[in-house]
C-alpha cells in the first residue's frame, strides 16, 4: 500500500512536471504590474508575486524546471555509477582497485562543495547543476552497484547459469545488472532525485545560484519570499510543502526498495 501511494505520488509529480513542460514559457514570465501581490483567488490560485506573475503557474513550470535536470543528474550518476560499479564488481582485481580508488577520491569531496565549486567556475545553469550533482552522487551509486554485482557474481544462481552455458553478456546485463541491481540503482537514484531538488532550492535560497530568475524553480519561489510573511503566506509555504512532499514520497519509495543484501 505504502509503495503504491509513494509511486502514485511520484507519478503525480512527474505528470505535473510534464504539464509544466508543455505550458508555454511565457506563462511563467508574464507580468501584470496592476495585479501585483494578490492573494489566493480563482483567477490566481496561489496569488501573484510583486510583479503580478501567477505563483501557481510558476510553481508548475518551476517544478518541471527542477524535475527534468534532476532526471538528468540521475542519468549521469546512473550511467557512470552503473558502468563503474559493474566493472568493479564483475571484473575485480586491478579494475576494482583503480575504479575504487577514483570513487574514493570523488567521495572524499563533500557533495555540496563539489557542486558549489563547479557552479561558480563554469557558470550556474540547470545543465551544470545537473552535471555536477550527477558527478557528486556517482560514488554512492558505484559503491552500491559494485557491492551488489560482486555478491551476485559469486552467487549460486550465476555460477549455475554459467555451467548451463548462458552467455556472459546475458549473465552480466540481464541476470546481474537488470534483475540484480535495478532496485539498488533505483533506490540510489531516488535519493539523488530528491537531493537534487533540495540542492537547487538550497542554492537559490542562500546564494542565488543554480536556476536563476526569471526562470521559475522551487528554490526561486522560496527565495523570493525570504524573510517576508513566512508563517502565513502561501507563496512561501506551498513551494516548501511541494518540496517536502517530493522528498517524503521519494524516501518512502526508496525505503520500499531496500533489499536485505543492500544493508
Amino acid at each position: 500500500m505504502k509503495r503504491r501511494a509513494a509511486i502514485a505520488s511520484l507519478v503525480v509529480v512527474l505528470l505535473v512536471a510534464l504539464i509544466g513542460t508543455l505550458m508555454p514559457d511565457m506563462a511563467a514570465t508574464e507580468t501584470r504590474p496592476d495585479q501585483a501581490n494578490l492573494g489566493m483567488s480563482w483567477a490566481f490560485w496561489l496569488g501573484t508575486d510583486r510583479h503580478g506573475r501567477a505563483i501557481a503557474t510558476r510553481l508548475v513550470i518551476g517544478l518541471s524546471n527542477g524535475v527534468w535536470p534532476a532526471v538528468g543528474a540521475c542519468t549521469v550518476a546512473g550511467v557512470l555509477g552503473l558502468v563503474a560499479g559493474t566493472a568493479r564488481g564483475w571484473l575485480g582485481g586491478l579494475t576494482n582497485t583503480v575504479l575504487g580508488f577514483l570513487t574514493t577520491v570523488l567521495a572524499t569531496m563533500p557533495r555540496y562543495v563539489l557542486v558549489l565549486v563547479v557552479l561558480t567556475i563554469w557558470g550556474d545553469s540547470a545543465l551544470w547543476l545537473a552535471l555536477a550533482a550527477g558527478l557528486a552522487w556517482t560514488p554512492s551509486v558505484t559503491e552500491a552497484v559494485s557491492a551488489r554485482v560482486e555478491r551476485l557474481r559469486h552467487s549460486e544462481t550465476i555460477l549455475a547459469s554459467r555451467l548451463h552455458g548462458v552467455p556472459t553478456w546475458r549473465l552480466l546485463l540481464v541476470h546481474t545488472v537488470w534483475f540484480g541491481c535495478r532496485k539498488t540503482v533505483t533506490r540510489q537514484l531516488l535519493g539523488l532525485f530528491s537531493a537534487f531538488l533540495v540542492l537547487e532550492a538550497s542554492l537559490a535560497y542562500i546564494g542565488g545560484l543554480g536556476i536563476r530568475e526569471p526562470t521559475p524553480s522551487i528554490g526561486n519561489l522560496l527565495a523570493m519570499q525570504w524573510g517576508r510573511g513566512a508563517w502565513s503566506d502561501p507563496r512561501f509555504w506551498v513551494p516548501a510543502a511541494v518540496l517536502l512532499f517530493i522528498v517524503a514520497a521519494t524516501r518512502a519509495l526508496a525505503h520500499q526498495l531496500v533489499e536485505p543484501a543492500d544493508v
Partner: protein
Amino acid sequence: MPRLTLPFVFGALALAASAIASPLRYAEDGAPGTINPLFTTNMTEARVQELLFDGLFTDSRSLVATPELVQSYQIAEDRQSMTIDLRSGVTWHDGQALSADDVVFTINAMKDPTTASTEAARVSFITTAEATGPRSLRLTFAGPELSPEDKLSFKILPKHRFSGTAIQRNDAFRTNPIGTGPFKLASFSADGSIVLERNVEYFAEVDLNGATLREVADKSYQAKLLVYQSLEALVRVVPRDLATLEADRGIELYPYQTNSWWYIGMNHQGVWADPDMRSALTMMINVDELLRPIGTGDTVTGPFVRSSPFYNHDVRKVAHDPDTARTLIATKGYTFDGTHWVKDGQPLTFRLLVQDDQEVGQDVVIAIQGQLQRYGVTLEPEFIDEAAWKSRVWQSRDFDLVLSQWTFDRNEDIHEQFHSQGSRNFTGYASETTDALLDQARTTVDPQAKRSLLQQAHGSISADQPMVFLWTLNSYAAVSTRVQNAEVHPFYFFTWAQDWSVE
C-alpha cells in the same frame, strides 16, 4: 534631601554619559578585504576608509569640495599647477605629525606601476608632486585643470609606515592601518567585524564614540537587525524592505541620490545598428512601469542625472508607444505570428546580460522581460559575475542588450562612454557630432562653455538613442532614531559621521 538628590544627579549624569558613549553599529554585505586605500575594490572598503582616513579635500554638506587636510591653496593662473599648505596640528593615529612628504608619498605610491594601485587613475592628472616645506607642497598637472580640488579627495597615507612607494597588497598595513581620520582601528577580527574607536587627537570635534562594522550577507536580515535594535544604521535599504522600515517608529529613512543612472545598452554591432530598431525598443519600454516595483527615482532622457548642470531639460522623453514600435519592427521584415515577431523563421529574441551583484537588477529584468513579451519580443536574461561581464561585454561584445548603470564623480565626464574612441564605449556607438562636442567639452576651461557643450551632447546622444536611458534611483539609508545629527554622503556615506552621535 540633598543626600538623595546628589547621587541621583551623578547617577543620571553617568547614565547619560554612558548612553551618549554608544558606538554606531552598521552592517555590510561582506567584510572589507583590505583597509589600504591603495587597493580599494568596493564600497564597503571605501566606507571604512572614510572613517579612518582624510583626504586633502572633502565634500561639504552641499557637496562642494572643501579643504580637509589643506589649510590653504593656490591654483596657478594657467591652471597647470597648484601649491598647497597643509593644516597644522594634524597627527597620525600613532602620534606622528602629518607632513607634505606623506602627501607626495601617497601620490607617488598610487602612480608606482609596481604597486598596481586600483586608484592609480585618480592621480593620473598629476605629473609631479614635490614637497616645498614641512607642510607645503606643489602639484603639477598634465594639462589645465578647471577644478583640481574636486580630484584631490583620495586618502592620504603615512609615509613612515612603508619602506617605499612600491607597495604590495599583502603589506601589513592592509589590516593594521593608521590614518588621520576621526576614528582609529581598534580591531579587525577574522570573522569580518571591524571595531573603530574615536580619535581623541582629531583636529576637529568628534561626537560619535566609535563605529562597529558587522558582516551580514543577507539584506533582509540586515533590515530585521535594525528593527530588532541590534544595529543603528543600514547603508542601503533594498526596495522590498522599505515599507517595513518606514512603518517602524524607531527608524528614520534618509533618501539620497547618487550620481548614477541606469540604462539598457544596445550592441551596435548587430540589429541595434539600425536606428529604427533602437527607436522601437525605446518605445516598447515603459520606464515608469519598470521603476514602480523597485522604488522611486527620476527618469532621465540622456547621460546625466537631472540635478546635473549638464542635463538638457529641453530634451523630451521618448513616449511609450508600442503601436509605433510595432510598425517600425514590421518595416524591418518581421511578421507577427500572434505571439512573436518572426523573420526567416526565427523569433525576435535578445540576450540581456546583467551583473549578478546588482541588488535590484533582477526585478528590473523580470519587468523588462514581461513588457517585451507583451509585444512579441523574447528576452533571454543572463546573470553573470564581474569577470564574465568584463570578458563578454568589454572584450568580446557577446551580447544584444545589457542592463547596467554608470556612476560618476562630480565631473560627470561621459567622454569615455559616448565618444567613438572612448575606452568604455562597449556598445559601439559612434557619432561625429557627439565626438566633436565631447572633445570640445573636455578641453575647454570655461565652465559656461563646458556646460553648454555637454547639454548639446545630451541632445545629440538622446536623438541617436544608443541606449534606453532609464532613471536615477533614490537610495535610502536607514538609521535608528537613537542616532542624532545623521546626515549621509550619497557616495561615501560616512563623510560627516564624526558629527553623529548615538544616544
